[in-house]
């Protein structure tokens, strides 16, 4: 079974600065996908960024980028030019691809606070 660990329960960053959220995972599978989701106080789960495990190139979405280290099973999220609207819970997740076992497994989350 796959597990996801987010070792930072809370993080804070000054507005306009850069912050990195850590995530490690464990799976015996070689083919999987990785995701970061954002959950603001509205409770909605919003997909921030995704990464295919077979791709070495790190994914980027505007101010959000990842540092994917497959051998180390590490998948950190970097947020550049932090904005007040980035304040939320951030969840790292891994999804296997084999039918019958395909499910999104989440970490425990990191609460990100933006300091004006």
């Amino acid at each position, binding site marked *: 079974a796959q597990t996801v660990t987010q070792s930072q329960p809370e993080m804070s960053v000054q507005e306009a600065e850069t912050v990195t959220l850590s995530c490690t995972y464990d799976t015996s599978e070689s083919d999987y996908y990785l995701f970061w989701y954002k959950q603001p106080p509205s*409770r909605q789960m919003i997909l921030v960024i995704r990464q*295919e495990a077979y791709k070495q190139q790190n994914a980027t979405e505007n101010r959000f980028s990842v540092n994917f280290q497959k051998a180390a099973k590490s998948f950190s999220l970097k947020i550049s030019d932090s904005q007040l609207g980035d304040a939320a819970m951030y969840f790292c997740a891994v999804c296997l691809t084999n*039918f019958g076992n*395909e499910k999104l497994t*989440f970490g425990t989350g990191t609460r990100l606070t933006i300091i004006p």
Partner: protein
Amino acid sequence: DTAVSQTPKYLVTQMGNDKSIKCEQNLGHDTMYWYKQDSKKFLKIMFSYNNKELIINETVPNRFSPKSPDKAHLNLHINSLELGDSAVYFCASRRGAQYGYTFGSGTRLTVV
């Protein structure tokens, strides 16, 4: 034009009651899920359905019974509600694993 819609958004009920949460997606996805988010914000899968067929049942008490009348709907019925069932329940659907899941806005269930 909501992609995944859940009703109700809030549900307050007494212990021992039976309640249902409804979920509908208009994305044409084949697979739908129920997740439970506890008071510490931990999200855990409960069930998954693919084209009306149960695929995953993650050791959920049999008081919880999902029902999928068609691939656009996945409802969750809970019998004999207990205090520990209080949580936020999310419905989700997906096109393919590589795209991630699309979540509904959640149903906050409070059992008193």
